[in-house]
């Protein structure tokens, strides 16, 4: 799962990271966001992630916290 597919929506500051980075960020209180369709999110997602489909992300970005890191992901790479 990577952040690259949402760069265009999230704009500046997004970068691709690996799972160890994610673990470290989560330990520091980061917010996980899955941008797959709702059905996919409901089927399975990373524990603690919120689901905001990519098509709605630009409209719902205000829901996300501004005081901590945000990790956005889509499909698992395996």
């Amino acid at each position, binding site marked *: 799962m990577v952040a690259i597919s949402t760069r265009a929506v999230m704009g500046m500051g997004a970068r691709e990271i690996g799972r160890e980075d994610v673990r470290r960020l989560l330990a520091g209180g980061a917010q996980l966001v899955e941008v797959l369709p709702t059905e996919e999110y409901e089927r399975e997602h990373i524990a603690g992630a919120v689901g905001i489909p990519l098509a709605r992300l630009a409209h719902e970005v205000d829901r996300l916290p501004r005081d901590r890191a945000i990790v956005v*992901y889509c499909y698992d790479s395996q």
Partner: protein
Amino acid sequence: MDWFANGGPREGREASRPCAGETARRDVPTCAATDRRGDVARRVRDAGWPLAVVLDGERVVLGLLDALDGDPAAAVEDVMRAAPTTIRPHVTLEKAAQSLKTRRHDRVLVTTSDGRLIGLLWRADAERRLAQSTAPAQTASR
């Protein structure tokens, strides 16, 4: 980032389905490629296992040693089965058991996506666990 393939925590409708990683036996014996077969065979048999998984220094699977008999002085790397089949821990038990049955295998190694050993899944364990999870719940007698 292959989160699920590395056993990361999951939530959702299907997250509670039993998967290979949680049923795999973590106590499968391991050895190094440079070990001697005789030493490994003695240790493996003492532990009640028929095989050992051959790992490198970072726990990446190199092979499987199931030919315990033979020249005890042989280096494991010369007598092991190289590159055994592996599956990821998030594979459902149902799928894993079906695959083992189709291939007529009784076991498969469970590893992370970068090849690090998690454990060994016996087909019998998978089928037993599935039978338990699909057994009808007992209702209270009236």
